[in-house]
């Protein structure tokens, strides 16, 4: 199972919504959503869509970025009417000193199951943390792959272990991607279970793990799209050519989109997101930077989901 870690911003949520509608049957994606906006409209619509299509997800109740830091009660009360039992599990970011608080919250709320996302400051030998981990309700544990002894311990006590990696290699400026037209992105989708013994894998999709709110009109426009190359996932950065100032974003989109479309035609791969990109290009329409982010995320979810469903198929056929 793939656990994409996404911040609950407009276009991330839109990618999830559309993905859920298109891939309701046989979905191998279990999103982890960190709510970050004090306006709950888009997240409500997204959660409803996930529910309608039976796509399960984890919702972080103690976000560490954005408007909702420390607002667990607001999150639960504002989303109360869309959160339906069985469709979601609560998730908690575990830090150096909050294990006891999470333990109490899971008990007070009478949650049946919960996910822990352990950040690097967690001392896995601390008593409070061990007590939290020992709760029957804690079913899924997400952590950075580097902690091997922790992983062995988790396997012993029968938790689903999920490795978290920060895969997207962010450059300072979009024009910096010109010198790296393609790079290796990840290979977990092929190895996480059979070779590495994880129940799932997680990353920040094709976005930075840093939380960035807002932004400026860039001088260069870049479209980031992943694809399969042998038993690896690679990423290409399709960058505009005319990058001397931030005017004519439409023209820049035309340049970058043409490169992306030519590339995917050449390797004969497509999906819903890439088809949508082709439509904008063929209609001569610039969709906006937000929609381009949505397409990058959606295309990546589609790619990983299709690999996971076809591997699952092979296993059934054996």
């Amino acid at each position, binding site marked *: 199972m793939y656990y994409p870690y996404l911040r609950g911003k407009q276009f991330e949520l839109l990618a999830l919504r559309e993905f859920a509608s298109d891939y309701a049957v046989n979905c191998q994606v279990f999103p982890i959503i960190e709510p970050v906006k*004090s306006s709950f409209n888009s997240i409500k619509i997204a959660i409803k869509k996930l529910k309608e299509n039976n796509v399960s997800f984890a919702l972080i109740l103690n976000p560490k970025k954005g*408007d909702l830091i420390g607002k667990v009660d607001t999150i639960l009360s504002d989303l109360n009417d869309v959160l339906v039992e069985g469709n979601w599990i609560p998730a908690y970011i575990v830090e150096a000193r909050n294990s006891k608080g999470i333990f109490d919250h899971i008990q007070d709320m009478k949650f049946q199951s919960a996910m822990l996302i352990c950040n690097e400051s967690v001392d896995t030998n601390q008593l409070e943390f061990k007590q939290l981990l020992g709760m029957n309700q804690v079913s899924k544990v997400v952590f950075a792959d580097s902690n091997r002894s922790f992983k062995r311990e988790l396997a012993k006590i029968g938790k689903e272990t999920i490795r978290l990696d920060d895969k997207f290699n962010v450059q300072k400026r979009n024009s910096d991607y010109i010198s790296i037209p393609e790079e290796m992105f990840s290979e977990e989708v092929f190895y996480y279970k059979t070779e590495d013994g994880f129940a799932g894998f997680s990353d920040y999709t094709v976005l930075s793990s840093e939380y960035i709110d807002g932004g400026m009109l860039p001088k260069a426009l870049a479209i980031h799209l992943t694809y399969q190359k042998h038993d690896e996932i690679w990423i290409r950065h399709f960058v505009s050519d005319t990058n001397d100032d931030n005017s004519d974003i439409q*023209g820049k989109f*035309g340049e970058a989109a043409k490169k992306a479309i030519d590339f995917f035609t050449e390797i004969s791969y497509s999906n819903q997101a890439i088809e949508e990109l082709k439509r904008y290009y063929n209609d*001569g*329409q610039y969709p906006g930077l937000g929609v381009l982010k949505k397409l990058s995320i959606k295309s990546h979810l589609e790619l990983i989901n299709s690999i996971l469903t076809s591997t699952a198929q092979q296993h059934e056929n054996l």
Partner: protein
Amino acid sequence: MSSQINNKDRMRSYASIFSGASFAQLLKTDDLDFITRKIVRYDQHNLGKKFTTYSEYLTYIYNILTREYRCEYVYKNEIINELLLKNYGTHNTVVINEFKVGNSVADMVMFNGISKAFEIKTELDSDKRLNGQLADYRTIFKESYIVTHESLVDKYLNLCGKSGLIAIEKHGRSLKMVEIQKAQIEEEINSDILMRSLRTNEYKSIILTYFDTLPNVNSFGMFNACAELMRQIPHNELHKLFISELKKRDSNTDFLKNYYKELRQVCLSMRINPKDYSELSYLLSQTISI
């Protein structure tokens, strides 16, 4: 010596209150802590004597800034108070902060019957980029002005060339804007630079107004096709079209006169509407509690 340094820190700290980001956060969270912290640090002994509400405190520190530390915020705010509201009136004027022209960004620009760009040079600013900045502004604005401190008038008179010069002077308890030199009016306009200062809908609207039709290309080729056509518009016509187009920009210029006079620049930069303003005004009218 150390008390002077501390005073400078204190002034910087006061100036930092007047930021759009802080006030936007205030509207979101109702949290006045960013102001309360300054009171606790510097002014607790005057609480109840010189001010009791948050808005009174803002007036109090704004007055200190006008006397002791005229930062860019004070200049921008006084351009609004003195030039815009007293001289031009807001009815038919649009004022915009931070407007991109060529390789520069004008601190403030105004559009009424004419287009004006303002470059603020406080005592704290360097004149390093001045020539390039003024040259950039003159490529599309009819008038460009340097706005500076009364003590720097002689220096900038030598540097301003065709641009005008306005001094900000202390008159009794308030500040006044005094025009030292009028700007020469620029008749020419560089359409290529103008294209890059406009939004897509704006350059399309200019082309549509003048030619009655848009070039027959898709949106990827629209910029270059419009740039080509814009070069054919006579300069005096293009100046007028530029001004009338910018006057359509969504702006709260018209409401500024109703806002606290110390906060007008914050309100302009946040493009705060009357509804949010009444919320802000309510929050600031509260008695300070520490």
